[in-house]
């Protein structure tokens, strides 16, 4: 990791000779609509993603309300399917992905000593595509036939048969995908071309490394998704038959193309989380990260392996046994670099002078609960078991352990860790700890019973169920409402900082923290590192 010799440059100390920034801080609505500053755009990404998290969370609570008792209480099955689909699409493309891009916008330039992102105007365009997509997706509930109900994977042939809500979903995913591609290009070019002198690649903080690799994954697989849904669109409206069996096409082919995007997408949503945790664990263990180089190589290995395991999502489609064996063993391989990371975090903590402020609690919680999700993933990689539990609540439990206790907990950890830098104020430790324990317990109350529901045969995406599943569904529903309400604590804790309530934050609020971001004042000035710092 790097050490810094020349610290920050405060606003107004710019090198005017070769800089095209406007040095006055813009005000009012123009500041946000025409934003080109990476910090402002990062903030907008984070606000957008939290709004979408609330929308997706509300849909989840509507699902859980219906599932509190067997039989149909509140919603028709068609509407229930729309809620399920939209919950998935909103959480994946509207909440988790933009949240990590928000973190990248805020932290990557600060961590590598760059004055801003490489393409500031494209950064603005990337962001403003998101509300357009978000509004369009939400509006699809109100078109004839309602929103798409084909599941977040939009599998053919169902997706070929739906109403205009499906077209809006396809268009939305094109827009959000274009936004992510531009964001990824921006991050790659920023990291490769704009690092401060002395900041070699192997001195970069792990968060930048994980984002660099994630950005390459995005570049590689989002065009695949775009192509898949374009083929859906042409099948729906322009007479092609890629996925239409009646025209010689094959619906299973859609699954192959989708999951060639979809599995790397899983790592797109978790690698930056690894980067955040790799920043926090050393800071609160007051030790250097154990095995920095192996963490970089493990991240790259996970990214490479993610391209060759896609069909483990499709064991039940009737693929040849040899293909099943290959995808089963290839998937198991991923546990090796993932294990390297988990062991490195534990080794970092070993004999460290640990304290458990809220970011560390969320990071340790992440390691514990994400590892459980990883293990159930390993179980699902075994083809004969997967065929038994395919499309059951076991799978729902597995991916929520990875995406909620994994990605979302890391996002919370990162928010509490860098919030003093963003706002200039310390959050309330009491609120943070309450948020953590309430979230951790309610998360497990919600999702742990789902493993047993799945093993007992409860299928996912069903509005009704047999009476023997009632108790576990009721526990899950109570946990879901508890988890949802817990997030209001988070909202309050963050808003308090923006309302300037709490202790003013010093430049480096965490004793063990390392990196260039802690050399600038808190809150970080509008312009930073206009004269690049020297890194030894």
């Amino acid at each position, binding site marked *: 990791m790097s050490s810094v010799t020349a610290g920050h440059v405060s606003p107004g100390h710019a090198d005017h000779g070769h800089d095209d920034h406007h040095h006055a801080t813009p005000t009012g609505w123009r500041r946000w609509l025409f934003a080109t500053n990476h910090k402002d755009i990062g903030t907008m990404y984070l606000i957008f993603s939290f709004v979408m998290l609330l929308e997706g969370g509300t849909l989840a609570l509507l699902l859980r309300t219906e599932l509190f008792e067997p039989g149909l209480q509140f919603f028709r099955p068609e509407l229930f399917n729309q809620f399920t689909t939209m919950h998935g699409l909103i959480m994946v493309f509207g909440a988790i992905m933009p949240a990590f891009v928000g973190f990248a916008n805020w932290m990557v330039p600060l961590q590598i000593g760059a004055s801003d992102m*490489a393409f500031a105007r494209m950064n603005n365009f990337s962001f403003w595509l998101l509300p357009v997509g978000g509004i369009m997706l939400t509006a699809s509930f109100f078109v004839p036939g309602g929103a798409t109900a084909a599941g977040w994977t939009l599998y053919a042939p169902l997706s070929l048969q739906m109403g205009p809500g499906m077209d809006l979903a396809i268009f939305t995913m094109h827009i959000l995908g274009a936004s992510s591609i531009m964001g990824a290009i921006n991050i790659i070019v920023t990291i490769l071309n704009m690092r401060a002198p002395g900041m070699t690649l192997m001195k970069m903080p792990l968060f930048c490394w994980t984002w660099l690799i994630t950005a390459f994954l995005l570049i590689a697989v989002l*065009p695949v998704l775009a192509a898949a849904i374009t083929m859906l669109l042409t099948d729906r409206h322009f007479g092609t038959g890629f996925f239409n069996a009646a025209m010689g096409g094959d619906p299973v*082919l859609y699954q192959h193309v989708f999951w060639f995007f979809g599995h790397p997408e899983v790592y797109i949503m978790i690698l930056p989380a690894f980067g955040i945790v790799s920043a926090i664990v050393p800071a609160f263990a007051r030790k250097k990260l154990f095995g920095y180089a192996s963490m970089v190589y493990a991240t790259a290995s996970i990214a490479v392996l993610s391209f060759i395991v896609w069909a483990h999502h499709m064991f039940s489609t009737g693929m040849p046994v040899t293909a099943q064996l290959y995808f089963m063993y290839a998937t198991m391989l991923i546990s090796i670099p993932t294990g390297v990371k988990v062991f490195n975090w534990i080794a970092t903590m070993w004999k460290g002078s640990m304290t458990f402020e809220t970011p560390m609690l969320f990071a340790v919680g992440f390691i514990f609960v994400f590892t459980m999700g990883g293990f159930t993933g390993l179980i699902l990689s075994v083809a004969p078991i997967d065929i038994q539990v395919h499309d059951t609540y076991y799978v729902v439990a597995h991916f929520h352990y990875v995406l909620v206790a994994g990605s979302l907990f890391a996002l919370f950890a990162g928010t509490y860790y860098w919030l003093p830098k963003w706002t200039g104020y310390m959050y309330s430790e009491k609120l943070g700890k309450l948020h953590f324990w309430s979230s951790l317990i309610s998360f497990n109350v919600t999702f742990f019973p789902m493993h047993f529901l799945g093993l007992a045969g409860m299928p996912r995406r069903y509005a009704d169920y047999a009476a023997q599943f009632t108790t576990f569904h009721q526990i899950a529903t109570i946990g879901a409402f508890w988890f949802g309400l817990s997030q209001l604590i988070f909202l309050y804790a963050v808003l308090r900082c923006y309302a300037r309530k709490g202790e003013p934050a010093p430049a480096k609020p965490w004793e063990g923290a390392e990196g260039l971001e802690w050399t600038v004042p808190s809150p970080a000035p509008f312009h930073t590192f206009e004269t690049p710092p020297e890194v030894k």
Partner: protein
Amino acid sequence: MTPEQKRRNRTAGLVLFAVVAAIFAWVIFRGSDFLGGVAGLTGR
């Protein structure tokens, strides 16, 4: 940002956009066959 840095950024950005466009086209025209063939789908 120096003019040299701007030039390098623009070049890198254009190369990455070209990669995105190439992957998109490849999936539509060739990739479906490839992905289907790898997993044992016949007749393609």
